[in-house]
């Protein structure tokens, strides 16, 4: 036996590691490293081996030989079992986690280099569905965890370094992120009434103690282009079909002369541009014995593929992180985040958007025609999209400062007290200018008399104060106990101020300010609002493990919220989780290819409070305006706003999860399986349909918010990951995840169904929430081919109640209820926007200095409604219309073209398409320069890469983008001419020095 000494360092940074554990194998003889990474271990047998481990690093076993000094370098291991996972008011090693979590680390983010942090979750983790709200720069993403169980805001709670972050993921610099952890099950109960949509915990990078200052610079530049154009009719085809449609109705053909029409104007080519994108990021991190720090700054500048600089997004961020041990037992930690974003936007959604106009404009009209007065009548909504872009003037700026101050006092053995204040303060400013412009007679965009400037200023503030005490102890080396008790105070308040005026001098944006505008009286308006919402929470958690293999935790949170009335102001949210590490059992065979098996389960109740404020009170917020008979000026009064519901309470989600984790083949293969069953009851439905006698259809009125239903989501999730060094030069990592969702509405009170969404103009709502069906399913007519001749028409019940008697060539609708009449009662379930399953694949290789990465994700079984064709006689059409019915036997799928009355445009399965897709999201190829070369120019690391985002999408869907999503639970999956997500070719450099 002898004494040995050594130093434990990080194999990559060569920094000493403080607190690494060194144990003689199969004994309890061990020690830990000091601040310099040094250790001394006595009584080491000559033939023994020592096991060196450190959180976040791969453990290593070293045989003891003759030497007495051992320099030990540990490889960082982000995926290791000892990896620390934040779970809300605490941490847990990944090994002992008993809830269902997904985690995306900084390595994945580096490989993806996303413009938006939400994209880092897209396809990389199971159970998380991320869809961008549009391809226009700066669009936020919709994140849905394990399906949709609410028809309020279904987005998860975002916790940034411990505090509730309200800026949206798009205002966080992705390169500042150390890890993203997603709590998918009842473990989120520690967040009580705010956690039922799941919780995303983001940890940002900080400096490390005793780390030499490290500079990281990352940049990329790229070009963006549309990933798809929709095939439309050219001018000649358009004229042909147009004339045919008039002839079919016995009317005069509008176009006499086809010569010279040619292909005409390709409006999509006219509006789509190739647009630049650029990003810079600089960070400086380091630390001394007692202090570590990190500062970073970034700049993102992105123009739109439609309208270029008219749809520009820029984001500047700065962050500061400071971590200091003041004394042995007292430490403080500060993080500050500043983000300034600037956005110009075009009308990019729905009827009247630029792309909608590009699809519907007649190709016979030249791009220079700004006023459509003497052109063919395209209805009042369709205008020249180029003119529209030119006349769009707006600017939106948000300045946001968020941060947290935390302190930790280890006031006694095994006890620590943490206090922290997190805050968000944001100032949003909008400026819109609508110039005088005549787009042509009757166009809805016209401003013929007077221009208008409108300004808005919104100030949002909130703070979260947490105080919690943790007790942790180990008894008899068998019982590990952690107790945590705490409270949270949350308050958000803010106000908005708006003003508008007409009479901007010279009709110019440069003069678009209230100070210059001349409008007065009714031509000058001002408005404002204010809010104050609070929440008070108490919570506790017990974590207990026996023999480090029987794991148990229980938690309870009590919330009181201003959102709910005195009758239901307080709610309790309990949950329990348990786990069993089977592979640590004595009976478990050794030397098995199985390294690790954990079986775990969780059950608990979580809430959702995302309703409007003060719905339990009847407030006089309705619109009450009537003109004076004397001079026509507006007189304002008061009226009841939304109807109140004094008994309103939160939604309760009962979440069950059963899962198993495997690690196989020396931890090379990692496998996670989960089954989940989430029952959300007391679903809050705002503006619930009620009888008109209550006056809710008055201006500014709406139905009450009531706890009206229940929704069940269930499914399985599978995650595989594989990491291996196939040879010294060739490393591989691969991942696959798959999630299924089965969504069913199980109960609705007070009404038979709830409607939502929009299709066409003036048509009934296409989406419904109804018992036994998926939430937001499409409710419309079923079609059965095309009437080929008059005999077929006569043999079928009359379709007059759909708007017109059918003629040969029209769509045949199914008499679904078999009552011999075709009417609105024949509408049925014709699809739903919820995918049957989604999956993601990622694959990375590195060979010598080269690395290659690719990510793909897919959605299968979701339906999309094609809703970007304006049902107007003269607008351009998609080229599938060339295959129209023109006589018996010519088509059984595309109806005739006609300007005569027909029911062909009502909402039916003719407009519902399979939206399944597989998207190759990212392909990148990088080269890492040899250290010995770059060290000559003082660089530690230098990587250059080329990358393509949104490379290709395999889909049958005919619209711009199958990821089209509006985000509303009822009314999702309806494509209004969704702004496609651009394809981006970029080149980047990452340097460390």
């Amino acid at each position, binding site marked *: 036996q002898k004494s040995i000494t050594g130093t434990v360092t990080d194999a990559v940074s060569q920094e000493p590691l403080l607190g690494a554990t060194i144990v003689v194998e199969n004994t309890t003889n061990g020690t830990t490293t000091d601040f310099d990474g040094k250790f001394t271990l006595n009584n080491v047998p000559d033939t023994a081996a020592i096991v060196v481990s450190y959180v976040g690093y791969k453990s290593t076993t070293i045989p003891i030989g003759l030497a007495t000094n051992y320099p030990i370098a540990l490889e960082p291991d982000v995926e290791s079992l000892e990896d620390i996972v934040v779970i809300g008011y605490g941490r847990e090693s990944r090994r002992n986690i008993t809830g269902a979590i997904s985690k995306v680390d900084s390595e994945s983010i580096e490989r993806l280099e996303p413009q938006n942090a939400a994209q880092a979750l897209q396809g990389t983790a199971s159970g998380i569905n991320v869809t961008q709200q549009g391809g226009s720069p700066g669009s936020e993403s919709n994140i849905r965890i394990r399906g949709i169980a609410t028809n309020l805001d279904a987005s998860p709670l975002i916790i940034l370094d411990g505090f509730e972050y309200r800026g949206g993921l798009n205002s966080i610099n992705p390169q500042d992120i150390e890890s993203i952890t997603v709590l998918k099950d009842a473990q989120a109960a520690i967040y009580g009434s705010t956690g039922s949509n799941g919780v995303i915990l983001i940890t940002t990078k900080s400096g490390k103690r005793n780390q030499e200052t490290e500079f990281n610079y990352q940049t990329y530049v790229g070009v963006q282009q549309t990933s798809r154009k929709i095939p439309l009719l050219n001018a000649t085809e358009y004229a042909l079909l147009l004339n045919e449609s008039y002839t079919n109705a016995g009317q005069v053909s509008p176009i006499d002369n086809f010569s010279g029409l040619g292909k005409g104007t390709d409006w999509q080519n006219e509006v789509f541009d190739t647009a630049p994108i650029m990003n810079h990021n600089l960070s400086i991190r380091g630390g001394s014995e007692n202090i570590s720090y990190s500062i970073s700054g970034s700049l993102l500048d992105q123009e739109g593929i439609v309208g270029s600089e008219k749809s520009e997004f820029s984001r500047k961020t700065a962050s500061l992180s400071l971590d200091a041990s003041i004394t042995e037992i007292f430490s403080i930690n500060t993080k500050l985040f500043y983000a300034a974003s600037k956005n110009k936007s075009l009308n990019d959604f729905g009827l009247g958007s630029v792309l909608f106009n590009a699809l519907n404009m007649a190709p016979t009209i030249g791009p220079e025609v700004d006023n459509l007065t003497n052109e063919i009548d395209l209805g009042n909504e369709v205008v020249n999209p180029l003119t529209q872009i030119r006349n769009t003037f707006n600017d939106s700026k948000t300045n946001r400062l968020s941060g947290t101050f935390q302190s930790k006092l280890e006031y006694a053995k095994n006890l620590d007290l943490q206090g922290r204040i997190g805050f968000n303060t944001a100032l949003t400013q909008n400026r819109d200018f609508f110039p005088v412009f005549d787009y042509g*007679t009757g166009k809805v965009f016209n401003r013929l008399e007077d221009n208008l400037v409108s300004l808005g200023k919104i100030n949002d503030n909130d703070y979260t104060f947490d105080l919690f005490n943790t007790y942790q102890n180990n008894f008899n080396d068998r019982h590990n106990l952690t107790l945590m008790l705490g409270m949270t105070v949350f308050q958000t308040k803010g106000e908005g101020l708006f003003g508008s005026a007409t009479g901007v001098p010279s009709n110019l944006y440069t003069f678009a300010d209230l100070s210059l505008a001349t409008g007065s009286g009714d031509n000058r308006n001002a408005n404002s609002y204010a809010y104050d919402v609070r929440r008070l929470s108490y919570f506790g958690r017990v974590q207990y493990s026996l023999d480090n293999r029987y794991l148990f935790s229980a938690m309870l949170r009590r919330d009181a919220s201003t959102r709910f009335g005195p009758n239901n*102001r307080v709610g309790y949210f309990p949950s329990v989780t348990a786990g069993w590490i089977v592979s640590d059992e004595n009976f478990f065979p050794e030397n098995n290819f199985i390294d690790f098996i954990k079986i775990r389960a969780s059950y608990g109740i979580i809430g959702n409070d995302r309703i409007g404020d003060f719905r339990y009170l009847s407030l006089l917020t309705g619109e*009450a305006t009537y003109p004076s008979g004397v001079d026509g000026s507006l007189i304002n*009064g008061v009226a009841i706003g939304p109807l109140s519901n004094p008994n309103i309470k939160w939604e309760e989600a009962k979440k069950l999860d059963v899962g198993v984790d495997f690690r196989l083949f020396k931890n090379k293969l990692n496998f996670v399986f989960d089954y989940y069953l989430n029952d959300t009851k007391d679903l809050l439905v705002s503006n619930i349909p009620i009888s008109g006698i209550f006056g809710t259809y008055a201006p500014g009125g709406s139905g009450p918010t009531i706890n009206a239903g229940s929704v069940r989501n269930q499914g399985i999730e599978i995650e595989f990951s594989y990491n291996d060094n196939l040879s010294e030069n060739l490393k591989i990592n691969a991942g696959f995840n798959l999630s299924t969702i089965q969504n069913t509405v199980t109960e609705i009170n007070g009404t038979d169904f709830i409607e939502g969404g929009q299709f066409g103009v003036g048509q009934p709502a296409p989406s419904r929430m109804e018992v036994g069906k998926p939430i937001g399913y499409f409710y419309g007519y079923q079609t059965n081919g095309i009437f080929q001749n008059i005999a077929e028409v006569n043999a079928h019940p009359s379709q007059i109640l759909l708007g017109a008697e059918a003629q040969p060539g029209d769509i045949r609708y199914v008499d679904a209820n078999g009552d011999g009449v075709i009417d609105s009662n024949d509408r049925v379930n014709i699809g739903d926007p919820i995918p049957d399953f989604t999956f993601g694949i990622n694959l990375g290789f590195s060979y010598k200095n080269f690395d290659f990465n690719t990510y793909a994700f897919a959605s299968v079984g979701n339906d999309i409604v094609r809703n970007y064709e304006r049902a107007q006689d003269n607008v351009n059409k998609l080229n599938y219309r060339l295959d129209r019915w023109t006589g018996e036997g010519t088509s059984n799928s595309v109806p005739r073209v006609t300007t005569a009355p027909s029911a062909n445009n009502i909402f039916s399965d003719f407009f519902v398409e399979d939206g399944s897709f597989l998207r190759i999201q990212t392909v990148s190829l990088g080269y890492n320069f040899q250290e010995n070369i770059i060290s000559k120019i003082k660089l530690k690391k230098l990587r250059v890469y080329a990358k393509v985002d949104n490379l290709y999408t395999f889909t049958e869907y005919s619209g711009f983008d199958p990821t089209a999503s509006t985000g509303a639970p009822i009314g999702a999956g309806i494509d209004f001419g969704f702004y496609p997500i651009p394809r981006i070719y970029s080149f980047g450099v990452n340097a460390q020095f």
Partner: protein
Amino acid sequence: SDDFVDVTPPYSINSETFFNSEEDFQNALIGSYDVLQATYVNVIMGEIASDNVNAGGESPTDVIGWQQVDRMIHTPVNSNIRDLWNFNFAGLQRAAFIIENKDNIEFEGKDQIIGEVLFLRAYFNFELVKWFGPIPIKPDGKFELGEEVTTPRSPVEEVYAYIESDLIQAIENLAINSVEIGRVNQMAARALLGKVYLYQEKFDLAADQLNTVINSGNYHLYGTQGDENYADLFEFIAENGPESVFEIQYTGVEGAGFGCLQCSEGNVMVGFSGVRGYTGPVYESGFGFCLPRQEAYDAYTSNDLRRDVSILDIEDWAAETNATYNIGNQDPVTGHTGYYNRKYIPRNNDNQPDPNLTQPNNYRAIRYADVLLMAAESLNRGNINDNLARTYVNQVRNRAGLSDVQDSGSQLLDIIYNERRLELMGEGHRFFDLVRTGRAQQFIDGFTAPKNNLFPIPEEEIQFSQGNWTQNPGY
């Protein structure tokens, strides 16, 4: 402690603690007037339901609910009929909110406010009973949640008794003249009460009220005095003029959108009735609904001044002024006729976007000409005084450039009915005149009596009431 979360919302007014000052009452009254603007839907749909016009629009399926009403094939599933129910009940509920708090405080001038509120409540109730027949009523205040399954549809007689009682009280409370132009006065309440009596064929009572209005001397037919020109009656210049007994105020100074048509401060009917794609003098373009039929145009004699005031012949006008326009719906039953409802199509004006929804044309809800004709009808049908009836009819005819009639008895009644149609063309009264006089099936294609005497209760309402309300017969 939990006191932290016990806060009142900043800068807002709670309905439980309202009605503490005269100003509160005035403000709530504005809220009740506001919903009058949503009754544009009563007017345009009433016209479409009649034999005066085609539904029109962009195509034969544009605003499908109106197209179905035009063809008389409407069913309980019809969002436009539902708008009618919802909007009128919304106005009713806002008036009832004031009524249920009317005893909170006393102040000078409260009678006038309560009088106006009672009138408004009666106005909305009368519209509802005309369209739907029996309706739920609650004279002492607002409907509260749950009452849709307990409050029955009251028989028409009870609804009318309730309307009469509101109007009689209103007459007691209201000053003879409006406190401000555009506000309800005692004569408006009398005119409406007269109309309500006439609908119930209480001719004596009707004639009393209507004669009081006529004898007040406060009104005359526009174009018969001073430098007035009859052709201006439906122009901005004659708004709130000497012929206006009750007029709904609209303005174009505030923008509006399709998401909430009832929120517009403009007259939505006017934009919807405008000529599609119109470019030219005098008028603005619109959506091409509510198109007078050839037969309606031909109902006027060529020397009747009312024809060209009521109906715009677009082909003649275009030829005369080089105006251009588009044709939308070309269906023979519901489509283009070449005529537009000239009384309520948009005139050139400075209104805010969407200009189709913010036309400032006031709706002359009760015109003096209507009062004269209702009085004449009451006097004749009640066998009260044919001479006086004839005098009233001839006043209306003379203003239109027509000579006196000498008839009496049923000939006179036929003339009165015809004059009502010609005088009130495009103003939304024709359908109800035909129904209440039992002539609807004779004149309206597709009309089946008694089914179509009433419109169906919206299917949704039948569901909300959980069987408490049964559907009107035939639907």
